[in-house]
Protein backbone atom coordinates (compact mmCIF):
# COMPACT_ATOMS: atom_id res chain seq x y z
CA UNK A 1 0.00 0.00 0.00
CA UNK A 2 1.02 3.54 -0.68
CA UNK A 3 1.70 5.99 2.12
CA UNK A 4 -0.44 9.11 2.00
CA UNK A 5 1.32 10.63 4.99
CA UNK A 6 4.95 10.11 5.76
CA UNK A 7 6.79 11.70 8.66
CA UNK A 8 10.57 11.55 9.07
CA UNK A 9 12.48 12.55 12.22
CA UNK A 10 10.00 15.27 13.13
CA UNK A 11 11.13 17.47 16.03
CA UNK A 12 9.66 20.58 17.63
CA UNK A 13 11.43 22.60 20.29
CA UNK A 14 9.90 25.50 22.19
CA UNK A 15 12.65 27.53 23.87
CA UNK A 16 13.77 25.12 26.58
CA UNK A 17 11.19 22.41 26.03
CA UNK A 18 11.11 19.71 23.35
CA UNK A 19 7.47 18.87 22.64
CA UNK A 20 8.12 16.36 19.87
CA UNK A 21 11.36 14.40 19.69
CA UNK A 22 12.46 12.85 16.43
CA UNK A 23 9.30 10.93 15.56
CA UNK A 24 8.79 9.00 12.32
CA UNK A 25 5.76 7.14 11.06
CA UNK A 26 3.78 6.36 7.92
CA UNK A 27 0.05 6.30 7.29
CA UNK A 28 -1.24 4.06 4.51
CA UNK A 29 -3.70 5.49 2.01
CA UNK A 30 -7.23 4.43 2.85
CA UNK A 31 -6.56 3.47 6.45
CA UNK A 32 -7.78 4.80 9.77
CA UNK A 33 -4.85 5.83 11.90
CA UNK A 34 -5.26 6.67 15.58
CA UNK A 35 -2.65 8.82 17.24
CA UNK A 36 -2.96 8.41 20.99
CA UNK A 37 -1.24 9.82 24.01
CA UNK A 38 -1.85 11.43 27.40
CA UNK A 39 -2.36 15.19 27.71
CA UNK A 40 0.77 17.10 26.87
CA UNK A 41 2.38 14.13 25.11
CA UNK A 42 2.83 16.08 21.87
CA UNK A 43 -0.28 15.06 19.92
CA UNK A 44 -1.60 18.51 19.17
CA UNK A 45 1.85 19.89 18.41
CA UNK A 46 2.33 17.06 15.92
CA UNK A 47 -1.05 17.68 14.28
CA UNK A 48 -0.27 21.39 14.03
CA UNK A 49 2.97 20.60 12.23
CA UNK A 50 1.29 18.07 9.93
CA UNK A 51 -1.34 20.66 9.00
CA UNK A 52 1.26 23.38 8.30
CA UNK A 53 0.22 25.82 11.02
CA UNK A 54 3.36 25.23 13.07
CA UNK A 55 6.86 25.00 11.63
CA UNK A 56 8.89 22.00 12.81
CA UNK A 57 12.35 22.59 14.26
CA UNK A 58 13.56 19.77 12.01
CA UNK A 59 12.27 16.79 10.08
CA UNK A 60 10.29 16.05 6.94
CA UNK A 61 6.56 15.72 6.30
CA UNK A 62 5.07 14.43 3.08
CA UNK A 63 1.30 14.61 2.52
CA UNK A 64 -0.21 13.06 -0.60
CA UNK A 65 3.28 13.17 -2.14
CA UNK A 66 3.79 16.88 -1.42
CA UNK A 67 6.43 18.24 0.90
CA UNK A 68 4.37 19.97 3.59
CA UNK A 69 7.18 22.41 4.31
CA UNK A 70 8.01 23.46 0.76
CA UNK A 71 4.86 22.79 -1.27
CA UNK A 72 2.57 24.09 1.44
CA UNK A 73 -0.41 25.04 -0.71
CA UNK A 74 -0.56 21.70 -2.53
CA UNK A 75 -0.20 19.84 0.75
CA UNK A 76 -2.91 22.06 2.27
CA UNK A 77 -5.30 21.31 -0.58
CA UNK A 78 -4.86 17.58 0.09
CA UNK A 79 -6.10 17.46 3.65
CA UNK A 80 -9.09 18.50 5.70
CA UNK A 81 -8.94 19.16 9.39
CA UNK A 82 -11.33 19.29 12.30
CA UNK A 83 -9.47 21.11 15.02
CA UNK A 84 -9.63 20.17 18.66
CA UNK A 85 -11.03 23.55 19.63
CA UNK A 86 -13.72 25.62 18.03
CA UNK A 87 -12.90 27.08 14.61
CA UNK A 88 -16.20 28.35 13.21
CA UNK A 89 -17.27 31.95 12.76
CA UNK A 90 -20.19 32.38 15.17
CA UNK A 91 -21.38 35.56 13.51
CA UNK A 92 -21.97 33.83 10.18
CA UNK A 93 -24.62 31.26 9.33
CA UNK A 94 -23.69 27.61 8.92
CA UNK A 95 -24.09 27.97 5.17
CA UNK A 96 -21.90 31.07 5.03
CA UNK A 97 -19.20 29.27 7.00
CA UNK A 98 -19.12 26.48 4.45
CA UNK A 99 -19.23 28.82 1.47
CA UNK A 100 -16.24 30.67 2.93
CA UNK A 101 -14.42 27.37 3.20
CA UNK A 102 -15.36 26.26 -0.33
CA UNK A 103 -14.08 29.54 -1.79
CA UNK A 104 -10.75 29.61 0.04
CA UNK A 105 -10.21 25.97 -0.94
CA UNK A 106 -10.98 26.88 -4.54
CA UNK A 107 -13.83 24.42 -5.04
CA UNK A 108 -15.03 25.01 -8.64
CA UNK A 109 -17.96 27.41 -8.63
CA UNK A 110 -20.22 25.07 -10.62
CA UNK A 111 -19.87 22.26 -8.08
CA UNK A 112 -20.01 24.39 -4.99
CA UNK A 113 -23.74 24.46 -4.24
CA UNK A 114 -24.12 20.71 -4.79
CA UNK A 115 -21.12 19.75 -2.68
CA UNK A 116 -22.17 22.02 0.17
CA UNK A 117 -25.67 20.59 0.08
CA UNK A 118 -24.36 17.04 0.23
CA UNK A 119 -21.93 17.77 3.04
CA UNK A 120 -24.66 19.41 5.12
CA UNK A 121 -27.13 16.62 4.41
CA UNK A 122 -24.63 13.98 5.49
CA UNK A 123 -24.34 15.57 8.94
CA UNK A 124 -28.05 16.35 9.09
CA UNK A 125 -27.74 20.13 9.14
CA UNK A 126 -29.19 21.05 5.76
CA UNK A 127 -32.45 22.29 7.29
CA UNK A 128 -30.58 24.43 9.79
CA UNK A 129 -28.16 25.92 7.26
CA UNK A 130 -29.55 29.43 7.60
CA UNK A 131 -29.04 29.62 11.38
CA UNK A 132 -26.21 31.56 12.91
CA UNK A 133 -23.55 29.26 14.30
CA UNK A 134 -23.85 30.95 17.69
CA UNK A 135 -27.29 29.35 17.97
CA UNK A 136 -25.90 25.85 17.39
CA UNK A 137 -25.29 23.32 20.18
CA UNK A 138 -21.82 21.84 20.73
CA UNK A 139 -22.68 18.68 18.80
CA UNK A 140 -24.10 20.62 15.87
CA UNK A 141 -20.96 22.75 15.70
CA UNK A 142 -18.82 19.63 15.60
CA UNK A 143 -20.93 18.14 12.81
CA UNK A 144 -20.72 21.39 10.90
CA UNK A 145 -16.94 21.39 11.26
CA UNK A 146 -16.81 17.87 9.89
CA UNK A 147 -19.10 18.78 7.00
CA UNK A 148 -16.95 21.79 6.26
CA UNK A 149 -13.76 19.73 6.20
CA UNK A 150 -15.29 17.51 3.49
CA UNK A 151 -16.34 20.13 0.98
CA UNK A 152 -13.00 20.21 -0.84
CA UNK A 153 -12.77 16.40 -1.06
CA UNK A 154 -9.63 15.94 1.01
CA UNK A 155 -7.50 12.84 0.50
CA UNK A 156 -6.78 12.70 4.21
CA UNK A 157 -8.89 13.98 7.06
CA UNK A 158 -7.30 15.00 10.37
CA UNK A 159 -9.61 14.78 13.36
CA UNK A 160 -8.20 16.16 16.58
CA UNK A 161 -10.41 14.77 19.35
CA UNK A 162 -13.57 15.00 17.24
CA UNK A 163 -15.94 13.61 19.86
CA UNK A 164 -14.76 15.36 23.00
CA UNK A 165 -17.65 16.73 25.06
CA UNK A 166 -20.38 15.12 22.97
CA UNK A 167 -23.23 12.83 24.06
CA UNK A 168 -23.12 9.11 23.09
CA UNK A 169 -25.73 9.58 20.35
CA UNK A 170 -23.72 12.27 18.61
CA UNK A 171 -20.48 10.38 19.10
CA UNK A 172 -22.00 7.31 17.50
CA UNK A 173 -23.32 9.29 14.58
CA UNK A 174 -19.96 10.94 14.04
CA UNK A 175 -17.99 7.69 14.13
CA UNK A 176 -20.45 5.99 11.78
CA UNK A 177 -20.08 8.87 9.43
CA UNK A 178 -16.29 8.79 9.64
CA UNK A 179 -16.28 5.05 9.00
CA UNK A 180 -18.47 5.41 5.94
CA UNK A 181 -16.25 8.18 4.54
CA UNK A 182 -13.32 5.85 4.96
CA UNK A 183 -15.04 2.82 3.40
CA UNK A 184 -16.99 4.47 0.60
CA UNK A 185 -14.64 7.19 -0.52
CA UNK A 186 -11.38 5.59 0.58
CA UNK A 187 -10.58 8.70 2.57
CA UNK A 188 -7.66 8.27 4.94
CA UNK A 189 -8.49 9.23 8.52
CA UNK A 190 -5.92 10.46 11.02
CA UNK A 191 -7.45 10.92 14.43
CA UNK A 192 -6.62 11.59 18.02
CA UNK A 193 -8.90 10.71 20.89
CA UNK A 194 -8.82 10.00 24.60
CA UNK A 195 -11.63 7.45 24.31
CA UNK A 196 -9.66 4.23 24.00
CA UNK A 197 -12.68 2.09 23.25
CA UNK A 198 -13.47 4.36 20.30
CA UNK A 199 -9.94 4.07 18.96
CA UNK A 200 -10.00 0.32 19.49
CA UNK A 201 -13.23 -0.02 17.54
CA UNK A 202 -12.32 2.14 14.57
CA UNK A 203 -8.56 2.25 13.99
CA UNK A 204 -6.57 0.03 11.62
CA UNK A 205 -3.27 1.32 12.93
CA UNK A 206 -2.38 2.95 16.20
CA UNK A 207 0.60 4.93 17.40
CA UNK A 208 1.03 5.89 21.04
CA UNK A 209 3.08 8.97 21.81
CA UNK A 210 4.36 10.01 25.22
CA UNK A 211 6.84 12.69 26.25
CA UNK A 212 7.23 13.59 22.58
CA UNK A 213 8.26 10.11 21.46
CA UNK A 214 6.34 7.29 19.82
CA UNK A 215 6.54 4.48 22.34
CA UNK A 216 4.39 1.88 20.61
CA UNK A 217 2.72 1.38 17.23
CA UNK A 218 0.90 -1.27 15.26
CA UNK A 219 -2.59 -2.76 15.07
CA UNK A 220 -4.74 -3.04 18.19
CA UNK A 221 -4.00 -6.79 18.35
CA UNK A 222 -0.26 -6.32 18.04
CA UNK A 223 -0.22 -3.74 20.81
CA UNK A 224 -2.37 -5.87 23.09
CA UNK A 225 -0.15 -8.89 22.47
CA UNK A 226 3.07 -7.05 23.07
CA UNK A 227 1.84 -5.44 26.27
CA UNK A 228 0.02 -8.62 27.38
CA UNK A 229 -3.20 -6.77 28.08
CA UNK A 230 -6.87 -7.36 27.34
CA UNK A 231 -7.88 -3.96 26.00
CA UNK A 232 -6.34 -0.94 24.38
CA UNK A 233 -7.10 1.09 27.48
CA UNK A 234 -5.13 -1.29 29.67
CA UNK A 235 -2.29 -1.30 27.18
CA UNK A 236 -2.35 2.48 27.08
CA UNK A 237 -2.21 2.78 30.86
CA UNK A 238 0.52 0.18 31.09
CA UNK A 239 2.61 2.02 28.53
CA UNK A 240 2.07 5.57 29.72
CA UNK A 241 1.63 5.03 33.46
CA UNK A 242 -1.15 6.13 35.74
CA UNK A 243 0.12 9.58 36.69
CA UNK A 244 -2.11 12.50 35.80
CA UNK A 245 -0.47 14.76 33.25
CA UNK A 246 -0.33 18.46 32.75
CA UNK A 247 -0.76 19.82 29.30
CA UNK A 248 2.46 21.78 29.34
CA UNK A 249 2.92 22.86 25.75
CA UNK A 250 3.97 26.53 25.85
CA UNK A 251 1.30 28.94 24.71
CA UNK A 252 -1.39 26.35 25.11
CA UNK A 253 -4.74 27.51 26.46
CA UNK A 254 -4.89 24.41 28.66
CA UNK A 255 -2.30 26.06 30.86
CA UNK A 256 -4.71 28.66 32.12
CA UNK A 257 -7.46 26.11 32.59
CA UNK A 258 -5.04 23.99 34.55
CA UNK A 259 -4.07 26.97 36.66
CA UNK A 260 -7.71 27.70 37.35
CA UNK A 261 -8.37 24.11 38.36
CA UNK A 262 -5.47 24.21 40.74
CA UNK A 263 -6.72 27.35 42.34
CA UNK A 264 -10.19 25.97 42.86
CA UNK A 265 -8.85 22.75 44.27
CA UNK A 266 -7.04 24.51 47.06
Amino acid sequence: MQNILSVQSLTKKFDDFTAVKDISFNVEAGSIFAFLGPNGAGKSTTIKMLTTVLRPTSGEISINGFNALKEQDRARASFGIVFQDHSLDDELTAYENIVYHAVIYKVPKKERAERIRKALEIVGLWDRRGDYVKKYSGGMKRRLEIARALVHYPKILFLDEPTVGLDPQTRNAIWNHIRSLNKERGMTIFLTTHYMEEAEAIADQIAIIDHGKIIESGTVEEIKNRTETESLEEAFLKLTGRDIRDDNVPGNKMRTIRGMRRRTRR
Partner: protein
Amino acid sequence: MIEVIYILWLRQLQHYWRSKARLLGSLGQPLLFLVTFGFGFGPMYARASGGGNYMDFLAPGIVSMSILFTAVFSGLEVIWDRQFGFLKETLVAPISRTEIMIGKTLGGASIAMIQGLIVLSLTYLLGFRIPSLASLGLGLVFMFLIAVFFTGLGLTIASKMKDMHGFQLIMNFLIMPIFFLSGALFPLENLPPAIYFISRIDPLTYGVDGLRGAIAGMSMFGVYNDLVIMGLLSVFICAIGAVLFSRIEA
Protein backbone atom coordinates in the same frame (compact mmCIF):
# COMPACT_ATOMS: atom_id res chain seq x y z
CA MET B 1 -7.50 34.97 -6.40
CA ILE B 2 -10.18 37.64 -6.85
CA GLU B 3 -12.83 35.40 -5.36
CA VAL B 4 -10.71 34.54 -2.35
CA ILE B 5 -10.13 38.23 -1.69
CA TYR B 6 -13.83 38.87 -2.21
CA ILE B 7 -14.95 36.27 0.33
CA LEU B 8 -12.51 37.59 2.95
CA TRP B 9 -13.81 41.10 2.26
CA LEU B 10 -17.43 39.97 2.36
CA ARG B 11 -17.02 38.28 5.72
CA GLN B 12 -15.81 41.51 7.32
CA LEU B 13 -18.66 43.52 5.84
CA GLN B 14 -21.15 40.93 7.05
CA HIS B 15 -19.71 41.27 10.55
CA TYR B 16 -19.90 45.04 10.37
CA TRP B 17 -23.40 45.17 8.98
CA ARG B 18 -24.73 42.67 11.50
CA SER B 19 -23.52 44.50 14.56
CA LYS B 20 -25.61 47.62 14.44
CA ALA B 21 -24.61 48.53 17.98
CA ARG B 22 -21.00 48.84 16.92
CA LEU B 23 -21.99 50.81 13.84
CA LEU B 24 -23.97 53.33 15.88
CA GLY B 25 -21.63 53.32 18.87
CA SER B 26 -18.63 54.30 16.83
CA LEU B 27 -20.47 57.39 15.58
CA GLY B 28 -20.75 58.74 19.12
CA GLN B 29 -17.16 59.85 19.52
CA PRO B 30 -16.81 61.76 16.22
CA LEU B 31 -20.15 63.45 16.81
CA LEU B 32 -19.13 64.43 20.35
CA PHE B 33 -15.81 65.82 19.12
CA LEU B 34 -17.46 67.74 16.28
CA VAL B 35 -20.00 69.37 18.53
CA THR B 36 -17.88 70.07 21.62
CA PHE B 37 -14.63 71.06 19.94
CA GLY B 38 -16.38 72.65 16.98
CA PHE B 39 -18.50 74.98 19.05
CA GLY B 40 -16.11 75.15 22.02
CA PHE B 41 -12.95 76.19 20.20
CA GLY B 42 -14.71 77.86 17.26
CA PRO B 43 -14.59 81.43 18.63
CA MET B 44 -10.99 81.05 19.81
CA TYR B 45 -9.90 79.72 16.41
CA ALA B 46 -11.68 82.56 14.63
CA ARG B 47 -9.86 85.14 16.77
CA ALA B 48 -6.45 83.48 16.41
CA SER B 49 -6.67 82.92 12.67
CA GLY B 50 -8.24 86.25 11.88
CA GLY B 51 -11.74 85.16 11.05
CA GLY B 52 -11.23 81.52 9.97
CA ASN B 53 -14.04 78.98 10.34
CA TYR B 54 -13.00 76.23 12.78
CA MET B 55 -15.60 73.79 11.43
CA ASP B 56 -13.85 73.91 8.04
CA PHE B 57 -10.60 73.04 9.80
CA LEU B 58 -12.04 70.46 12.16
CA ALA B 59 -14.37 68.49 9.85
CA PRO B 60 -11.62 66.79 7.77
CA GLY B 61 -9.76 66.06 11.03
CA ILE B 62 -12.72 64.29 12.60
CA VAL B 63 -13.49 62.37 9.42
CA SER B 64 -9.86 61.20 9.50
CA MET B 65 -10.19 60.31 13.16
CA SER B 66 -13.20 58.08 12.62
CA ILE B 67 -11.42 56.35 9.74
CA LEU B 68 -8.28 55.91 11.86
CA PHE B 69 -10.10 54.22 14.73
CA THR B 70 -12.38 52.06 12.61
CA ALA B 71 -9.48 50.94 10.42
CA VAL B 72 -7.16 50.06 13.31
CA PHE B 73 -9.94 48.14 15.10
CA SER B 74 -10.80 46.24 11.93
CA GLY B 75 -7.17 45.23 11.59
CA LEU B 76 -6.90 44.21 15.23
CA GLU B 77 -9.99 42.03 14.81
CA VAL B 78 -7.63 39.32 13.59
CA ILE B 79 -6.70 38.86 17.25
CA TRP B 80 -10.31 37.90 18.00
CA ASP B 81 -10.23 35.53 15.04
CA ARG B 82 -7.17 33.98 16.58
CA GLN B 83 -8.74 33.68 20.03
CA PHE B 84 -11.99 32.24 18.74
CA GLY B 85 -10.10 29.79 16.59
CA PHE B 86 -11.30 31.00 13.21
CA LEU B 87 -7.88 32.24 12.10
CA LYS B 88 -6.65 28.64 11.89
CA GLU B 89 -9.38 27.83 9.41
CA THR B 90 -8.07 30.56 7.11
CA LEU B 91 -4.41 29.73 7.70
CA VAL B 92 -4.63 26.03 6.80
CA ALA B 93 -6.30 26.86 3.49
CA PRO B 94 -4.26 26.58 0.28
CA ILE B 95 -4.17 30.34 -0.31
CA SER B 96 -1.25 32.72 -0.24
CA ARG B 97 -0.70 34.90 2.81
CA THR B 98 -0.67 37.91 0.48
CA GLU B 99 -4.24 37.12 -0.57
CA ILE B 100 -5.23 36.99 3.10
CA MET B 101 -3.54 40.33 3.75
CA ILE B 102 -5.15 42.00 0.72
CA GLY B 103 -8.61 40.62 1.46
CA LYS B 104 -8.48 41.66 5.09
CA THR B 105 -7.03 45.07 4.31
CA LEU B 106 -9.72 45.83 1.74
CA GLY B 107 -12.41 44.54 4.10
CA GLY B 108 -11.27 46.72 6.99
CA ALA B 109 -10.64 49.69 4.71
CA SER B 110 -14.15 49.45 3.23
CA ILE B 111 -15.71 49.49 6.69
CA ALA B 112 -13.54 52.47 7.68
CA MET B 113 -14.57 54.25 4.45
CA ILE B 114 -18.27 53.70 5.18
CA GLN B 115 -17.76 55.01 8.69
CA GLY B 116 -15.84 58.01 7.32
CA LEU B 117 -18.63 58.76 4.83
CA ILE B 118 -21.25 58.67 7.56
CA VAL B 119 -19.22 61.14 9.63
CA LEU B 120 -18.68 63.30 6.55
CA SER B 121 -22.44 63.52 6.09
CA LEU B 122 -22.79 64.46 9.76
CA THR B 123 -20.43 67.38 9.23
CA TYR B 124 -22.79 68.59 6.52
CA LEU B 125 -25.52 68.89 9.15
CA LEU B 126 -23.13 70.97 11.25
CA GLY B 127 -22.56 73.40 8.45
CA PHE B 128 -19.47 72.03 6.69
CA ARG B 129 -19.62 72.37 2.89
CA ILE B 130 -17.40 70.76 0.25
CA PRO B 131 -16.76 73.24 -2.58
CA SER B 132 -17.09 70.94 -5.61
CA LEU B 133 -17.59 67.40 -6.81
CA ALA B 134 -13.94 67.24 -7.90
CA SER B 135 -12.73 68.08 -4.41
CA LEU B 136 -15.07 65.44 -3.00
CA GLY B 137 -13.52 62.93 -5.40
CA LEU B 138 -10.00 63.78 -4.28
CA GLY B 139 -11.18 63.72 -0.68
CA LEU B 140 -12.47 60.17 -1.14
CA VAL B 141 -9.06 59.13 -2.45
CA PHE B 142 -7.46 60.43 0.74
CA MET B 143 -10.07 58.79 2.92
CA PHE B 144 -9.38 55.50 1.19
CA LEU B 145 -5.61 55.84 1.63
CA ILE B 146 -5.98 56.62 5.33
CA ALA B 147 -8.30 53.61 5.64
CA VAL B 148 -5.89 51.27 3.83
CA PHE B 149 -2.82 52.42 5.72
CA PHE B 150 -4.34 52.09 9.17
CA THR B 151 -6.09 48.78 8.49
CA GLY B 152 -2.72 47.53 7.27
CA LEU B 153 -1.11 48.85 10.44
CA GLY B 154 -3.75 47.15 12.60
CA LEU B 155 -3.22 43.86 10.78
CA THR B 156 0.54 44.13 11.03
CA ILE B 157 0.32 44.69 14.79
CA ALA B 158 -2.28 41.93 15.14
CA SER B 159 -0.04 39.42 13.39
CA LYS B 160 2.40 39.85 16.27
CA MET B 161 -0.13 39.78 19.12
CA LYS B 162 -1.42 36.63 20.76
CA ASP B 163 -4.30 38.20 22.70
CA MET B 164 -5.97 41.50 23.51
CA HIS B 165 -3.85 42.20 26.62
CA GLY B 166 -1.67 44.63 24.73
CA PHE B 167 -4.66 46.54 23.43
CA GLN B 168 -4.45 49.44 25.92
CA LEU B 169 -0.75 49.78 25.21
CA ILE B 170 -1.38 50.11 21.49
CA MET B 171 -4.27 52.52 21.97
CA ASN B 172 -2.62 54.86 24.47
CA PHE B 173 0.94 54.83 23.21
CA LEU B 174 0.39 54.54 19.49
CA ILE B 175 -3.09 55.28 18.19
CA MET B 176 -4.02 58.19 20.47
CA PRO B 177 -0.70 60.02 19.89
CA ILE B 178 -1.09 59.40 16.15
CA PHE B 179 -4.49 61.05 16.35
CA PHE B 180 -3.66 64.00 18.63
CA LEU B 181 -0.41 64.92 16.88
CA SER B 182 -1.76 64.63 13.34
CA GLY B 183 -3.14 68.14 13.16
CA ALA B 184 -6.68 66.80 13.16
CA LEU B 185 -7.72 69.12 15.99
CA PHE B 186 -5.27 72.04 15.89
CA PRO B 187 -2.81 73.53 13.39
CA LEU B 188 0.71 72.10 13.58
CA GLU B 189 2.38 75.49 13.80
CA ASN B 190 4.69 77.07 16.37
CA LEU B 191 5.13 73.78 18.20
CA PRO B 192 8.03 72.81 20.51
CA PRO B 193 10.71 70.93 18.50
CA ALA B 194 9.97 67.48 19.97
CA ILE B 195 6.24 67.69 19.24
CA TYR B 196 6.99 69.18 15.84
CA PHE B 197 9.23 66.24 15.01
CA ILE B 198 6.71 63.63 16.11
CA SER B 199 3.95 65.30 14.13
CA ARG B 200 6.12 65.13 11.01
CA ILE B 201 6.74 61.37 11.32
CA ASP B 202 3.06 60.75 12.07
CA PRO B 203 1.53 59.14 8.95
CA LEU B 204 -1.90 60.55 9.74
CA THR B 205 -0.48 64.11 9.50
CA TYR B 206 -0.22 63.68 5.74
CA GLY B 207 -3.61 62.03 5.50
CA VAL B 208 -5.32 64.81 7.43
CA ASP B 209 -3.42 67.49 5.53
CA GLY B 210 -4.29 65.95 2.18
CA LEU B 211 -7.95 65.47 3.07
CA ARG B 212 -8.16 69.02 4.41
CA GLY B 213 -6.49 70.32 1.28
CA ALA B 214 -8.93 68.37 -0.89
CA ILE B 215 -12.24 69.19 0.78
CA ALA B 216 -11.53 72.39 2.73
CA GLY B 217 -8.82 74.01 0.61
CA MET B 218 -6.25 74.24 3.44
CA SER B 219 -2.98 72.34 3.09
CA MET B 220 0.49 72.75 4.59
CA PHE B 221 2.49 70.33 2.49
CA GLY B 222 0.54 70.44 -0.77
CA VAL B 223 -2.14 67.92 -1.70
CA TYR B 224 -0.01 66.04 -4.23
CA ASN B 225 2.90 65.60 -1.84
CA ASP B 226 0.43 64.19 0.69
CA LEU B 227 -0.97 61.90 -1.97
CA VAL B 228 2.45 60.46 -2.83
CA ILE B 229 3.43 60.02 0.83
CA MET B 230 0.17 58.31 1.80
CA GLY B 231 0.27 56.11 -1.31
CA LEU B 232 3.81 54.93 -0.61
CA LEU B 233 3.14 54.36 3.08
CA SER B 234 0.07 52.25 2.29
CA VAL B 235 1.96 50.01 -0.10
CA PHE B 236 4.82 49.76 2.39
CA ILE B 237 2.67 48.72 5.37
CA CYS B 238 0.76 46.15 3.31
CA ALA B 239 4.03 44.61 2.15
CA ILE B 240 5.27 44.36 5.75
CA GLY B 241 1.92 42.91 6.81
CA ALA B 242 2.07 40.27 4.08
CA VAL B 243 5.56 39.22 5.20
CA LEU B 244 4.51 39.02 8.85
CA PHE B 245 1.36 37.10 7.91
CA SER B 246 3.43 34.52 6.09
CA ARG B 247 5.21 33.85 9.40
CA ILE B 248 2.10 33.55 11.55
CA GLU B 249 1.73 30.30 13.42
CA ALA B 250 -1.53 29.20 14.94
